[in-house]
């Protein structure tokens, strides 16, 4: 716990410092007439103080229990899946819902566990077309069509 708390509190100190800096550019107003920067500035200061307390605490009451932050082998997979979600978001509107969903589901099914290839293809097809049917055709959600127009 000890080292993890040091790292995270340090991170929050940076975040709060940035918040304080950015909100200092907004009008603070007065206590009787708060401006746009009032709340973010004060909250940023508070957050910095809390992070500082945590930072100090992490030295004094360290039980020395260091959790393994990253399990072996799993990290790469987590990053890949996260990346795939972001790519899905970025290319959804250009490539269209059906194609992107097919690709994403195929990737996820392969990446997460051992699923037979044939089942992967089957499930990806069913999910992309099925969701299109349910959400676009039945519920009228406006799913993106993309450049291929489907």
């Amino acid at each position: 716990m000890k080292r993890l708390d040091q790292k995270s509190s340090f991170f929050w100190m940076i975040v709060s410092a940035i918040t304080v800096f950015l909100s200092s550019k907004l009008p603070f107003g007065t206590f009787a007439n708060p401006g746009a920067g009032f709340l973010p500035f004060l909250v940023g200061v508070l957050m910095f103080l809390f992070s500082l307390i945590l930072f100090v605490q992490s030295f004094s009451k360290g039980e020395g229990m260091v959790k393994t932050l990253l399990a072996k082998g799993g990290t790469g997979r987590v990053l890949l899946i996260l990346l795939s979600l972001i790519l899905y978001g970025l290319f959804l509107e250009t490539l269209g819902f059906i194609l992107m969903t097919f690709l994403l589901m195929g990737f996820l099914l392969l990446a997460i566990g051992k699923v037979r290839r044939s089942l992967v293809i089957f499930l990806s097809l069913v999910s992309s077309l099925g969701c299109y049917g349910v959400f676009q055709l039945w519920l009228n959600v406006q799913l993106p069509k993309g450049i291929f127009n489907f």
Partner: protein
Amino acid sequence: MEILDSVLHGFQIVLQPANLFYCFLGCLVGTLVGVLPGLGAPAAIALLLPGTFHMSPVSATIMLAGIYYGSMYGGSTTSILVNIPGETASVVTCLDGYKMARQGRAGPALGISAFGSFIAGTIGVFILVFLSPPLANLAIKFGPPEYFSLMILGLTILTFLTKGSMVKGLIMACLGLILGSIGTDAISGMYRFTFNQLILYDGIGLVPVTMGLFGVSEVLLQIEEGVKREIFQTSFKGLLPTFKDWMDCKWAMLRGTLIGFFLGILPGGGAVVASFASYGLEKKLSKHPEKFGTGVIEAVAGPESANNAGSTGAFIPLLTLGLPSNVATAILLGAFMIYGLQPGPLLIKNHPDVFWGVISSMYLGNVMLLILNLPLIGIWVKFLKIPYAILFPFILLFSLIGVYSLNNSVAEIVIMAGCGILGYLMKKFDYEGAPLILAMVLGPMMENALRQSLMISRGSFLIFFTRPISLILFGTAIILLLLPLLGKFRRKITMAAG
């Protein structure tokens, strides 16, 4: 007895086969969209709205109302089963509900949320029938100062919400407040932390943050651990709550109902805050607060009753004043107008059919939802037997579609993914997401109410203490904050004396 006649008249309307059918249809669709993470009642109502134009106004409103309160039943399902809230109002249900599922008690957890929702919905309808006008008057008394005091009271819940380090909980609350302040400042019209990105002008949506912080991060964690545990291995100990469960929950459900209903009638209050408030209250009153967060059933029953009662309570300002208290009721208001009904003080006089028909349908709807949801528990629990390698991709896909469909915006998908990694790291570093969500909900309301109040009073803080409702709320908040300190103080004295 005029009211009883009206209610009977209402039942005559609902019991017509067509209306019964639409009531059932609404409840069914509501349950389903509630179960799907991200896709909520507002989206479902808006999507089905055009299809209702050829229906009679009574049938249409009965159906749309059914979707709205029905979605509150379904919201808890994914919270309990896979730790992914179906609605923001079900975030707190994750805390103990998922732990219960882990212990093989998914059935009782789902059961008690269905029963809790039913009891809350039914009591809510009774209050709606008998106390609408006085409660509507109470709702109007809530101006900016009252809201500010209420939000302060809400923030005290934070202190009960964290089960680990208090400092970490407070850091998360600060982060929630900061995230909530992104966007156009509602008082001055200035842009805060928007970096000239149009997409940030309206602020960061609560749903993508919730989905990322809870849903995506949970899936990532499980995947990292390796999908060794192919399915939930713990055996299922019964599908329904036991007698002891009932005894543990009865007061929690009642209290949740009252809190939820009360917050529901305030325009802007709503089900999210109600569910958090109920959790906080139960923990405060519990004989074993230390067990909260490890899978206690009253921590599921209370919030689930509260969010359902909240959705019923929201009908009071909608029907009697024409005031929507959340996005879903705002869309309902629009629907009413298209049907040629003007919700407001005159609705009950001009369109008694609609007013009493809808209220009676809510009573029947709750019965239908209970009957619908109890058999579903068995089916939902079976979903846990699907191998994770197949279940997780589908959970991610439904979250993606749900988040996208809110605003048809791919930016929200990216925000969700970003919050996914944040939530993943938070779990690694032992931070809790619930205080962040609560602060993100309360923050903007609190800030606006504070600034509006001070504008009205021209800078005098006395406005919070000279208005009775505000004074009571503020006082309660202070007492709640001081109680733990008093307890410590007394213990010290007795120790010194002894």
